[in-house]
């Protein structure tokens, strides 16, 4: 079997090291390089898991400090300012740096194995996502080292977060860090959508995919569609803080609700981003240990999709106290109650799966059942908040803290721990100690309930959240003390988990390939799997394929063995690469530069551009990358760019919506009708439309191998793009001369940010076109590279269609 690149993870980096090492230090260096340059989805999964656990310990430490401070009345363990930073960073860390990347660890390690693939669609992009996440997390936590940790809450409400009320760097760390993390999440989201839709093994139809893979797919769509909303909000906040714009300046006509809307359009789907992976895990664990199929699996899948879809229609239930009016309150109240239906369906299906099963009470099953119980409690208190009058009583009280933790610890974390105990043997080749695990579970379970159940009561008797201390006469002292004792119980549980893991790694029982008599394809390969996952792509006989292969269907009839299909191209494994970490470092340096000096931003940008350039061209001539057609009949790269453009629709849609919402709110001029130059913009619009014509001509020329025409049309498209940018620069200059600047009024803020972002996209498009043109001039753009031209073309046409909308709604509509 031909193997290109590395067949064994860790072998190839010797190429970078300069040959096989002979000393211990050399081996250590090689091992380090192998991890830094790895593009193996399993190793990246482990990196996500380890990093998430480290951040989880930091976030957990912050939680314990919060609980110690509240353990008794009038406590002075930490100051009010420190307390603000603790709850802000605890929330931010647990959401973005612990639970999400814990889920990402499972996505990375398991999804390719479960669908019978050798890796993800874009292994280097996967590595880039990880490194951006890590640097983003380190950047956020570096705020502690310079004494400026974010302290405006994980929701970052304006006006609390405006420069006027938060003058230090605290909020800057937060908004820049979240933008970096968002870039990582969207890249990973696109990658996994393409992987799942386009890289399934033969026979693995969509409805045969394991439920965990389905929940991963739903989660990735939520990520790519929800993150642009918070990105838009963060961009506005950044411009308000750094450049003096007026997005959240009430005196200039701005609306503070805009931040809340943008944040929660992201924030509520984010809840499902955190919980759906856990639902997927439980849907794998329960059937295995009940030794029967998941009850109504298609309904569980549809319910997950419905939860994801409804998740975009309920965001304003976080804002019932903001005064949206009775119609909006009623609409979001109904939508929120509706979302309980698919969630309840899942609960009943899980219970029905257990009913009549031959239960094997493993630790993984304990956690899965724990999730059902605890998430049900959190879900029920959630339905209470769906009623605006009830929500008015509960909002900003400890009742909400209890609800949220029942969902995110009782739900997400317990689900992830079920997955940890379930798949640890597959990942490490060692078994965990089940007895210690059961002890650990019960300590966690009791500790968790002792911590958070009393908080329902504390909220009900009036204890507000986010207060750093309270008086003795409030009657809150006893249950706060109990809550603190419970929190340390959770801490003890996590320590025992760590002990169990370390003991397993040092001398745990060796795990067989299929220790649980599993149902899905990952159990069909060794524990841990080889770098290429499967020697031959596994056959798929239906849902729970491996179970059917071993035990047959409900009547015990086993499927006829399907002969292995040899891969016609051999086993092609991706080579390790330094460029992901270099590119990610460039982005992190640029973000840090925003807090240090503009020169550092420049340095980061240069590293980012050089890294991205090298990244893009690294495998340009590798014939193994020429064809990437998958299950959907489309090239991976084409599918990826379309998913990305879908995400961009959200970004530009919300930018345009903000422009329209603010259009007539400027309290001083100039106003749009006084300044917009329609004849000039009509010419630039025509120019951009014609550039799209040249782009399709360029693609047609590349597809038929006409090099001269390809060069001509590519250059022509880039030229038209530059002309458009010239028009835009001239228009901006004219506006500034006429008194319209970013800072002048709300119209200036929204106009320059919207059209400026579009201009930035055009600039990137021109850079891509010129890169293709250079490659063509050097004879490195052949018919086989037509897909690359098509992908750049799709991006270019998208820039065009966005302008079509901007031209109408900004310039023409009165």
């Amino acid at each position, binding site marked *: 079997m031909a193997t290109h690149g590395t067949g064994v993870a860790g072998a190839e980096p010797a190429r970078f090291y300069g040959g096989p090492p002979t000393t211990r230090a050399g081996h250590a260096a090689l091992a380090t390089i192998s991890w830094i340059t790895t593009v193996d989805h399993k190793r990246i999964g482990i990196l996500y898991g380890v990093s998430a656990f480290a951040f989880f310990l930091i976030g957990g430490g912050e939680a314990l400090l919060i609980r110690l401070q509240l353990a008794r009345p009038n406590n002075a363990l930490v100051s009010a300012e420190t307390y603000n930073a603790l709850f802000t960073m605890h929330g931010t860390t647990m959401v973005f740096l612990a639970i999400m990347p814990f889920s990402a660890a499972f996505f990375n390690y398991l999804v390719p194995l479960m669908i019978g693939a050798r890796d993800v669609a874009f292994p280097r992009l996967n590595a880039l996502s990880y490194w951006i996440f890590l640097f983003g997390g380190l950047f956020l936590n570096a705020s502690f080292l310079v004494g400026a940790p974010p302290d405006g809450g994980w929701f970052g409400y304006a006006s609390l977060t405006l420069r006027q009320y938060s003058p230090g760097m605290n909020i800057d760390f937060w908004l820049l860090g979240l933008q970096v993390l968002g870039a990582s999440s969207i890249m990973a989201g696109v990658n996994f959508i393409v992987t799942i839709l386009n890289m399934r093994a*033969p026979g693995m139809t969509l409805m045969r995919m394991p439920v965990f893979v389905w929940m991963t797919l739903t989660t990735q769509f939520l990520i790519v569609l929800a993150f642009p909303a918070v990105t838009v909000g963060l961009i506005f906040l950044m411009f308000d803080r750094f450049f003096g714009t007026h997005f959240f300046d009430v005196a200039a006509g701005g609306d503070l609700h805009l931040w809340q809307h943008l944040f929660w359009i992201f924030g509520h789907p984010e809840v499902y981003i955190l919980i759906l992976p856990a639902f997927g895990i439980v849907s794998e664990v329960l059937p295995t240990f009940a030794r029967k199929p998941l009850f109504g699996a298609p309904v569980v899948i549809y319910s997950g999709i419905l939860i994801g879809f409804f998740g975009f229609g309920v965001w304003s239930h976080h804002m019932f106290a903001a005064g949206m009016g009775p119609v909006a309150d009623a609409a979001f109240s109904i939508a929120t109650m509706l979302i309980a239906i698919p969630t309840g369906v899942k609960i009943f299906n899980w219970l029905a799966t257990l009913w009549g099963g031959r239960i094997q009470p493993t630790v993984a099953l304990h956690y899965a059942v724990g999730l059902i119980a605890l998430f049900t409690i959190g879900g029920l208190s959630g339905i209470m908040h769906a009623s605006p009058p009830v929500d008015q009583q509960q909002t900003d009280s400890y009742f909400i803290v209890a609800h949220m933790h029942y969902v995110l610890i009782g739900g997400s974390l317990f689900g992830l721990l079920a997955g940890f105990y379930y798949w640890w043997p597959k990942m490490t080749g060692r078994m965990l100690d089940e007895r210690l695990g059961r002890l650990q579970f019960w300590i966690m379970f009791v500790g968790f309930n002792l911590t958070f159940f009393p908080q329902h009561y504390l909220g009900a008797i009036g204890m507000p959240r986010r207060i750093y201390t309270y008086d003795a006469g409030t009657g809150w002292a006893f249950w706060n003390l109990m809550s603190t004792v419970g929190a340390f119980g959770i801490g003890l549980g996590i320590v025992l988990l760590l002990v169990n893991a370390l003991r397993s790694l040092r001398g745990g029982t060796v795990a067989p390939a299929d220790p649980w008599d599993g149902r899905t394809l990952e159990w069909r390969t060794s524990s841990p799997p080889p770098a290429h996952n499967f020697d031959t792509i596994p056959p798929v006989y239906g849902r729970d394929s491996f179970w059917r292969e071993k035990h047959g269907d409900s009547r015990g009839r086993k499927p006829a063995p399907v002969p292995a299909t040899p891969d016609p191209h051999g086993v092609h494994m991706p080579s390790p690469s330094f460029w992901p970490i270099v590119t990610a470092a460039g982005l992190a340096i640029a973000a840090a530069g925003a807090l240090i000096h503009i020169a550092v931003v420049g340095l980061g940008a240069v590293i980012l551009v050089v890294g991205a350039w090298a990244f893009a061209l690294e495998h340009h001539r590798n014939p193994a990358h020429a064809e990437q*057609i998958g299950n959907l009949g489309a090239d991976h790269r084409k599918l990826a760019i379309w998913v990305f453009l879908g995400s961009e629709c959200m970004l530009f849609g*919300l930018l345009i*919506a903000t422009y329209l*919402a603010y259009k007539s709110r400027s309290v001083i001029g100039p106003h749009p009708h006084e300044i917009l130059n329609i004849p000039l913009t009509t010419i630039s619009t025509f120019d951009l*439309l014609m550039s799209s014509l040249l782009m399709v001509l360029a693609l047609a020329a590349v597809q038929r191998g006409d090099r001269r025409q390809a060069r001509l049309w590519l250059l022509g498209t880039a030229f038209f793009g530059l002309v458009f940018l010239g028009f835009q620069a001239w228009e901006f200059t004219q506006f500034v001369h006429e008194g319209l600047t970013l800072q002048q009024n709300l119209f200036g803020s929204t106009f320059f940010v919207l059209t400026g972002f579009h201009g930035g996209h055009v600039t990137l498009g021109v850079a891509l076109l010129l890169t293709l043109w250079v490659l063509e001039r050097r004879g490195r753009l052949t018919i086989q590279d037509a897909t690359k031209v098509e992908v750049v073309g799709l991006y270019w046409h998208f820039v065009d*269609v966005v302008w079509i909308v901007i*031209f109408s709604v900004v310039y023409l509509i*009165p």
Partner: protein
Amino acid sequence: MSDHPSPAADAVHEHASVRTYVRVALILTLITALEVGVIYIRQLSPIVVPLLLAMSAAKFALVAMFFMHLRYDVRPLSGVFVGPLLLATGLSVALMTLTGAFLVFGR
């Protein structure tokens, strides 16, 4: 791989001819001229906003269908773009409504 189309499957989806591309470009130019024209016709002012939105949507669709080849490519590519596009449109309208850009309902 039985479940996978042949490697050449993507190429099977023939794109439009150069003549079609040129025609589309001409139609786009024509619609753009109409867009600019209608804003100067006073009699059309009551319907100018829906008219402009309709023409903008038509141009958007033409570029997406012909230049971006959605008309010729496999259906799932349309799905992963049009779904988010509709969601973005819905959310944008809701956001404008909730921030008071439309007087559908007061606060």
